[in-house]
C-alpha cells in the first residue's frame, strides 16, 4: 500500500465544517463529514487552494521551522526566486542572500541559477531529439501530481528533468562536502519556499528516488527574521553571493520558464483551473503548434504561492524590476560542475488511477449505473450542503460507500415531510378507530 505524505493538512479545532474548501478544491479531494473537513489523501495534489480560501485558517501547510536547521553542522539555504520580491526595500538580490547568512545559514545558492541549468538541459534534450512535443514543464509539483492522477496520457510529455530546487540541492550537497569535508548527512539543505507542494516533493519526489532537500521552510515563516536581518545589514559591505541572471530569476513569474527557453510556440498558463482546462485540451491533441507548455498551479506563477507574504502582483512588479538590473548576462557562463545526465529523471511517475470506481470493470459499470440513478434522484443544485462538492460527487461517494442519500438536505426534507404526513394519517386512523369504539 502506497503511503501518501501531504503538506496540506487540516487543523480540526479551527474547522467549522463550512463548504468553502470543498467547492474550491480543483480535484474534489475534500469532503465535510460530521461537521469537519476531511482531505482524501490520494486525490490531494497540494496545490494550496484550500489554504487560500478557508475563512477560518483551518487549512495549513506542514513545513519545517528555522530552528530545524540547527540539527545540521553545515546549513545551506536554497531560496526560490520568489523570495526576492517579498521585501519593499530590496533592490539588490545580494541583500536577501546576505540576510540569509545573517540568520544562521553557512552557505546560500540560488534556485534561480539551478533554473537556468534546467533551461539549458531542456535545450539540450530538444537538440538531441530525446523528447517529444508538446513538452510539459515539470517545475510545478502540483501540476505534475495532477497529471499523474488525472491525465495519464500526458505523462510521456512531461519534461524528464529534476526541478530547479532539486538541482540546486544536488549541486550544494556536492560542493558543501568538498568544501567542509563533512559527511553528507551533516549538511542540511533547506529550500525557502512559496509553495506547499514543494514540501511534499521533498518527502516523496517524482522522477528520482530520494530528494537531496533536507527541509522546506515557508517564506512566511522566515519573513520576519529575514526582514530584521535585512534592516541590520551593512549594505556597503555585501558578500557577492548572487549567481543567477534574469532568465533564472524570471522563473518566479508566470511565463518565466518558457520565455527563458524559447521565443514562440509556447503557452504559459497559471491558476489551477486554467491549467486543468488546458490539460484537457492538450490530452485531446487540440493544440497543434505548441511545443512547450509551462503550467503553474498558482495565479501569476510562483509569486502567487500560498506560503508567500506579499501580494503576488506586487511581487511580480518587484521581480521584474530586479530582473532589469540583471540584463547583461548569459546563462552559459560560469556553469557549475553538473552534466545533463545528473539532472535527468531516473524514474517516470506512474499513473495513479484514483478516479476509477472499481478495479473490476464490470463492477465499475454497475456502480456507474447506480451512480447515474442516484444522481437523477438528487436535486442537481450542487449546493454542497451534504459535504460533497456536487450532486455528482455525492452520487459517486454513495456508490463508493462513503455517503448516504439522506446526506442531501433536500432529500432529507422530502423524507421528513413524507414521514410527517404518515404520522398525520396514522393519527387520523387512530381517531377513526376510537370513534368506532
Amino acid at each position, binding site marked *: 500500500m502506497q503511503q501518501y505524505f501531504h503538506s496540506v493538512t487540516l487543523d480540526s479545532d479551527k474547522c467549522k465544517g463550512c463548504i468553502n474548501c470543498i467547492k474550491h478544491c480543483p480535484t474534489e479531494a475534500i469532503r465535510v463529514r460530521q461537521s469537519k473537513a476531511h482531505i482524501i489523501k490520494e486525490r490531494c495534489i497540494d496545490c494550496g487552494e484550500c489554504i487560500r480560501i478557508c475563512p477560518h485558517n483551518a487549512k495549513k501547510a506542514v513545513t519545517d521551522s528555522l530552528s530545524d536547521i540547527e540539527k545540521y553542522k553545515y546549513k545551506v539555504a536554497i531560496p526560490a526566486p520568489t523570495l526576492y520580491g517579498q521585501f519593499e526595500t530590496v533592490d539588490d538580490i545580494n541583500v536577501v542572500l546576505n540576510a540569509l547568512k545573517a540568520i544562521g545559514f553557512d552557505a546560500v545558492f540560488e534556485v534561480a541559477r539551478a533554473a537556468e541549468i534546467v533551461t539549458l538541459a531542456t535545450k539540450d534534450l530538444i537538440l538531441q531529439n530525446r523528447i517529444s512535443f508538446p513538452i510539459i514543464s515539470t517545475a510545478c509539483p502540483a501540476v505534475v501530481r495532477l497529471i499523474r492522477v488525472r491525465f495519464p496520457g500526458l505523462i510521456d510529455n512531461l519534461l524528464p528533468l529534476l526541478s530547479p530546487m532539486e538541482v540546486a540541492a544536488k549541486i550544494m550537497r556536492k560542493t558543501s562536502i568538498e568544501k567542509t569535508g563533512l559527511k553528507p548527512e551533516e549538511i542540511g539543505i533547506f529550500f525557502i519556499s512559496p509553495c506547499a507542494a514543494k514540501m511534499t516533493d521533498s518527502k516523496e519526489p517524482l522522477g528520482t528516488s530520494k530528494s537531496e532537500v533536507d527541509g522546506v521552510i515557508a517564506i512566511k515563516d522566515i519573513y520576519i527574521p529575514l526582514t530584521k536581518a535585512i534592516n541590520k545589514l551593512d549594505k556597503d559591505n555585501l558578500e557577492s553571493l548572487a549567481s543567477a541572471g534574469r532568465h533564472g530569476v524570471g522563473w518566479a513569474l508566470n511565463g518565466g520558464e518558457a520565455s527563458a527557453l524559447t521565443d514562440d510556440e509556447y503557452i504559459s498558463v497559471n491558476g489551477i483551473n486554467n491549467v486543468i482546462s488546458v490539460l484537457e485540451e492538450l*490530452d*485531446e*491533441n*487540440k493544440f497543434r503548434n505548441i511545443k512547450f507548455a509551462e503550467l503553474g498551479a498558482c495565479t501569476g506563477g510562483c509569486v502567487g504561492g500560498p506560503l508567500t507574504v506579499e501580494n503576488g502582483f506586487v511581487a511580480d512588479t518587484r521581480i521584474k524590476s530586479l530582473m532589469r538590473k540583471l540584463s547583461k548576462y548569459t546563462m552559459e557562463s560560469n556553469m557549475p560542475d553538473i552534466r545533463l545526465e545528473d539532472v535527468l529523471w531516473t524514474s517516470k511517475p506512474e499513473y495513479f488511477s484514483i478516479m476509477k470506481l472499481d478495479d473490476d470493470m464490470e463492477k465499475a459499470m454497475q456502480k456507474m449505473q447506480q451512480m447515474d440513478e442516484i444522481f437523477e434522484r438528487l436535486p442537481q443544485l450542487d449546493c454542497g450542503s451534504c459535504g460533497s462538492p456536487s450532486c455528482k460527487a455525492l452520487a459517486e461517494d454513495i456508490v463508493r460507500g462513503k455517503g448516504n442519500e439522506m446526506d442531501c438536505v433536500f432529500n432529507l426534507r422530502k423524507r421528513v415531510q413524507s414521514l410527517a404526513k404518515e404520522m398525520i394519517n396514522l393519527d387520523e386512523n387512530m381517531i377513526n378507530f376510537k370513534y368506532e369504539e
Partner: protein
Amino acid sequence: MSDIVKTLHYDVDPKDFDSVGEASGKTKNVLRQLGFPPEVLRRVAIAMYEGEINMVIHANGGTADVEISPKQIKITLKDNGPGIPDIEKAMQKGYSTASEEARSLGFGAGMGLFNMDTYADELNITTKIGVGTTVEMIIRT
C-alpha cells in the same frame, strides 16, 4: 459477443464553437471512471473530437452515441449534412473543404478523417449526398 453495459448520448450543437469537444471530453471522463487504460482514453478522445469538429464545420451539428463495453468502445456520429462526395479523397491527409471561417478558427487542416482512421481500430462511413453522413468508429481495448 460482449454485452453493452453503458451508453451515452450527446447532441452536438452547431451554433456554439466553444462547446465542440464537450461530448468527447465527457466520454473521456466516463471511461476514466470505468478504469480504461490511458491509451484507450486518448484514442477515443482524439477520434471522437475530430468527428465532433467535422459535424460542426460541415454538417450543421448532429448526434453522438457511445456504447461502452469492457472489450470495445463504439462511437456513432450521425448528421443530416451535405454528405461526403468523395470519401477516398476526404480520407487523405491534408485534404479539406472547410470554409474560410472554420480555417480562421484553426480548423480545416485536413486531419479529421485521417486522424479518426489512425486512432480507431475500425472506421465505417455511410454517406448520401444531401441526406447526411454516419460515422461509426470502434476502438478496441
